[in-house]
């Protein structure tokens, strides 16, 4: 159920993104297939299924097939610890946040191996860029989470949501939230941080040689990643399933709580897409230096200041 939901959401995000981008760029998006072009995704999927699916003879075959599977497996597995509403989750792991970090660190292999196995210069460079970027921004992501963990005193996502009963963490942790979201964009290598697949310089980066459903898996994997980061931001900083009236969320019916969670997630996804529509792409050296010189010191400071404030408020 949940899985089908996630995949459908991820697939229809492609439609949503194209429509929203079109809206912000003052043009029509896909609007021919079905009402408002809603069935565009289905048409795309059928097209993708029916395309020739070839493995280049110069590629390392086993690794070439494995790479797109990794990105999907890690992204989908991450959803196992996401609580959609109180008690509605696949696995209530005590160290849920760590599990998410572990999954995202395994996701790096997908791009590295895809770039290597393709045996193509563009793909190798794209894969390298992608892995270096994902590695460094993963550190900043986990560092920026630390403030939330400190305030909630738990690694369990449900407990973190419960700790936000009085006030959503987006207020005391606004710096952490900004850092987390930036790192999340870099982690999913979305625009403006889509340097691994900068089409002007690297064709399509690590998935240059991929076609048909294997390309589709990278594509879907990217959108699952966006959904995941948005859902996480909603959970960690915007109170998850609780409504805007603090303290009343306990009495809500589960589907209303799920509705709040979904609404928040979708607003954040919309923000993701808005960023794509409005931000230019930085150079690669700017990206890496921004990480070391801004993200890293800021996230460390954020942790220390949070700790000091929590201590002082005693």
């Amino acid at each position, binding site marked *: 159920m949940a899985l089908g939901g996630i995949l459908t959401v991820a697939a229809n995000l492609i439609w949503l993104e194209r429509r929203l981008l079109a809206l912000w760029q003052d043009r029509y998006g896909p609007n021919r297939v079905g009402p408002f072009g809603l069935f565009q995704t289905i048409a795309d999927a059928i097209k993708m299924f029916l395309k020739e699916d070839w493995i280049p003879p110069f590629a*390392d075959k*086993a*690794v070439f097939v*494995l790479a797109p599977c990794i990105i999907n497996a890690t992204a989908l597995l991450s959803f196992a610890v996401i609580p959609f509403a109180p008690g509605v989750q696949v696995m209530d*792991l*005590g*160290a849920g946040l*760590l*599990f998410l*970090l*572990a999954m995202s*660190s*395994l996701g*790096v*292999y997908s791009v*590295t*191996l895809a770039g*290597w196995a393709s045996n193509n*210069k563009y793909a*190798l*460079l794209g894969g*390298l860029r992608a*892995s270096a970027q994902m*590695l460094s921004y993963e550190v900043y992501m986990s560092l920026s989470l630390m403030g939330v963990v400190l305030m909630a005193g738990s*690694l369990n996502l449900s407990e973190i949501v419960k700790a936000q009963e009085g006030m959503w963490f987006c207020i005391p942790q606004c710096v952490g939230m900004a850092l987390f979201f930036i790192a999340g964009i870099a982690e999913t290598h979305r625009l403006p941080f889509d340097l691994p697949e900068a089409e002007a310089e690297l064709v399509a980066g690590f998935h240059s040689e991929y076609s048909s459903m294997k390309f589709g898996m990278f594509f879907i994997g990217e959108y699952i990643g966006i959904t995941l980061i948005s859902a996480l931001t909603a959970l960690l900083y915007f109170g998850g399933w609780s409504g805007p009236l603090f303290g009343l969320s306990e009495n809500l019916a589960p589907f209303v709580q799920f509705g709040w969670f979904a609404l928040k997630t979708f607003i954040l996804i919309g923000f993701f897409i808005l960023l794509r529509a409005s931000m230019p792409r930085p150079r690669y050296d700017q990206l890496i230096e921004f990480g070391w010189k801004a993200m890293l010191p800021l996230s460390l400071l954020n942790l220390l200041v949070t700790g000091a404030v929590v201590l002082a408020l005693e």
Partner: protein
Amino acid sequence: MNTAFYIASAVAVFATAKVVTHTNPVHALLYFIVSLLAVALIFFCLGAQLAALFEVIIYAGAIMVLFVFMIMMLNLGTDTALREAQLFSPGIWIGPSVLSGLLLFELAVLFIQGEPQSASNAAMVSPKDVALSLFNTYFLGVELASMLLLAALVGGFHLGKRDQAEELPGEVK
């Protein structure tokens, strides 16, 4: 849980054997990653959630990426695979195999004599328990670790420092 433990152990042993015998370095590394994940699962079965996740994050997720980078950087291609294949002539592997076989036999004897600890009677250790002892009893170790990390940080950056003149031909910048 015992079944999960045995399956994970079998996977770990098989994958590690493949690491040693595989001739393609990248494929061998992939088996290595699988082996580490299996070990993480074993930790999990034994009730050490945190250790399992750390194993995945640090070993499988970080150090192995370094290995993959290394192999990509050294540009190990088909000739390496051929050379590796030649390594497996009996004269080379028989000696070490006999010796490690002896060790394995010894281990088996020890296990049969002693009471083997079953995986299922291990208690779950929550992240909180680990953290409490880490920052209470063993906090000196944490500070020492920070010194070690400092050395690693400086050393790592110095590794990357290199004059333009030394750069190898054919390098992509």
